[in-house]
């Protein structure tokens, strides 16, 4: 028997909001985020993200949706064979940015996460916290309307996690909407933001 990963989940996030998505591991947070960036298809219901009707998107339209999103994961997913700078520039290059725009934009993003001095380092030479900051720089370099953060502090110690959260708050303060998923209920409480709680695929709390 197949059980739905999410059931009867309904919520709206306004532009410019910072929303925490909490819940234990396996509660459906990642599935929910994947639905939002069209990596999964909902069996029923409607999803609208950044003006896109995600459930009606054709395969060829998915890149258009994702260009308006920044996505970070627990694992930074950096390209091992490229330097920090190249990891950021890669995104701009594959999105067709003009050649003369790539370097200043990439450095601006690195500056925003406090890593402009580590531009020539390779991912293997970075701490986990630094790697996650590069992942954040990569997510914001294309100025997304919405940042989806899936357990970005899950692998980090408290101090590094704090730095990442401060950076995400900073990004949010500049106008980017944030949906921050975490299984750490203490962290969710510390953030003091609107919190959506998922339990076994069901939205059990929406408060803050």
């Amino acid at each position, binding site marked *: 028997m197949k059980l739905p990963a999410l059931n009867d989940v309904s919520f709206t996030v306004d532009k410019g909001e910072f929303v925490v998505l909490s819940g234990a591991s396996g509660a459906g947070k990642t599935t929910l985020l994947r639905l939002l960036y069209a990596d999964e298809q909902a069996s029923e219901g409607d999803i609208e993200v950044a003006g896109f009707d995600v459930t009606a998107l054709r395969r060829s339209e*998915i*890149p258009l949706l*994702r260009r308006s999103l920044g996505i970070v994961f627990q694992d930074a*997913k950096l390209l091992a064979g490229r330097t920090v700078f190249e990891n950021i520039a890669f995104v701009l290059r594959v999105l067709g940015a003009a050649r003369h725009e790539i370097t200043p934009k990439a450095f601006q993003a690195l500056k925003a996460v406090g890593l402009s001095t580590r531009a020539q380092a390779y991912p293997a030479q970075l701490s986990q916290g630094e790697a996650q900051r590069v992942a954040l720089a990569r997510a914001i370099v294309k100025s997304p309307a919405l940042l989806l953060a899936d357990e970005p502090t899950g692998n980090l110690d408290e101090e590094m996690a704090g730095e990442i959260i401060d950076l995400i708050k900073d990004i949010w303060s500049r106008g980017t909407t944030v949906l921050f998923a975490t299984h750490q209920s203490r962290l969710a409480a510390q953030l003091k933001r609107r919190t959506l709680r998922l339990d076994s695929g069901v939205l059990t709390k929406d408060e803050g």
Partner: protein
Amino acid sequence: MSEALVDLRRAGRVGVSAVLLITLSLTALGGFWLLSLNLGRAVAQWRDRVRVVVFLKDEPTPSALADLTSRVEGLDGVYRVRYVSKAEALSSLRQSLGAQSGVVDHLPRNPLPASLEVTPAEGATTPEATRALAAKLAAFPETEEVQGGAEWVEGLARWQRLFQVVALAVGAVLALAAILTVTTATTLVLHARRAETEVMRLVGASESVVRVPQLLQGMVQGLLGAVVALGLLEVAYAVGAPRLEPLLQLTLGLARAVFLSLPQILLLIAGGAILGGLGGLLARGRAVA
């Protein structure tokens, strides 16, 4: 393009194997093509030389000859008619005998008949057409015997067609092998590049940006294979043609063997690129699946 070249380096031995297989298939294809091309020239040349000779019972008077010529020219499929008198026939015999031409002088009388040399029109040099023409010419009351036809030229043409079929069959098998190898090479590269591909898709790169390097990688392999194949064919031609030409002259009447023309060379190169590109596209399909 730079991504494609980096990918090709990453493919290593499998990439080299793909290039070699494309080289092999295009060399085989090009080799058969060269043979077929030269046989085709021989066939065309011999088709131009097809003649039907009508030996006459008696040497006609000028007015009878004019009448006969006009009746023959009026037949379907006749391009030209040339009269060869008994004296001309003897003169030709004398010339062809060369040093032994004195033998002719010992003949009590000219034994050679007068004849009409009939050149079939273009399109009427097939065995069927020349047989039909010969039958009509044989029905003339002035005709003693009719000789000539296009059977052996058609035999040559059949060989040419056989070469074309063999070339296509061998080429197709090797091309298939080449496509599969390019597919494997590109799939391996895709596997190595999956982190990049994942990032590209996550940030919203269009599918064409994700896939074009794979297509280009295959095409570069194909182009390399085609260029090497052409080099091999050129060397084989440069070495082989001078040795084969006397034999070709003797058997087929071909003074010289020709190499592929520029459009044919470009077609072979394009063929290589298409083979490689197909391999890249198939790899894409497998990676997506």
